[in-house]
């Protein structure tokens, strides 16, 4: 079946710019890469929390200040927040259909994500610099 052409634009000209423009693929891929990174990182985190749930501050600070913990905790926090923001973005896009509300919520989770990573990393930095 051939559609009747009622203008002079080419087929390619009409469809260009209407697709995902590769954005969707990037989001999909980033969600999965962060998920794979989080498998070992989150298991490590939960194992640590299980073993030091009611410690005092001195012990917690000593643990958080060690190079391995510091590195893994920073990576965990970054991967976790990145993965969470990507996931929340999809939830918002799926359920909120009012453009203004959707935009505000999307901005909010982006800012909250960046803010939480910055706050967490600064807290870790203070712990390692001053021993809390």
């Amino acid at each position, binding site marked *: 079946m051939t559609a009747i052409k009622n203008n002079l634009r080419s087929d390619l000209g009409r469809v260009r710019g209407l697709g995902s423009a590769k954005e969707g693929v990037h989001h999909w891929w980033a969600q999965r890469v962060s998920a794979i990174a989080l*498998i070992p990182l989150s*298991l490590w985190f939960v194992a640590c929390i*299980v*073993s030091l*749930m009611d410690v005092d501050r001195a012990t917690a600070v000593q643990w958080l200040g060690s190079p391995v913990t510091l590195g893994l905790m920073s990576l965990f926090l970054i991967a*976790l927040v990145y993965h969470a923001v990507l*996931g929340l973005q999809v939830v918002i896009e799926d359920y909120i*259909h009012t453009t*203004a509300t959707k935009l505000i919520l999307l901005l909010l989770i982006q800012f909250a994500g960046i803010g939480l990573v910055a706050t967490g990393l600064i807290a870790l930095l203070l*712990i390692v610099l001053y021993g809390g």
Partner: protein
Amino acid sequence: MASHPRPVSPHLQIYRPQLTSILSILHRITGVFLSIGILVLVGWLVAAASSAEAFDRAQSLAASIVGRCLLFLWTVAFFYHLLNGIRHLAWDAGWGFELPATYRSGWTVLIATVILSLAAWALGYWARGNV
């Protein structure tokens, strides 16, 4: 811009809940719930960086009945989201798409979630010897 009163799909009023659809929405719900947990994690790090009093306050909040209930729910949500996430990654790789396999992996995720959550807490209590 107003949203349009179009019917949504699936039509939830007449849609029979199935294991697959329930596990699917649970993945979302646990994901959102775990995202809220990030606030607690960062709050705990800030308390550790601040002072002994702030840290003790955070620790006693976590040890309270409400704190423990929430932490247990976060544990369940974590293991569910982790295991079902691995199930999703397997699907992405093209494995386990057949209907019987989907149900088998679904039940496996549910049972493993219960076992791992209880094991994590049993281990936590056992490690500090107050069962």
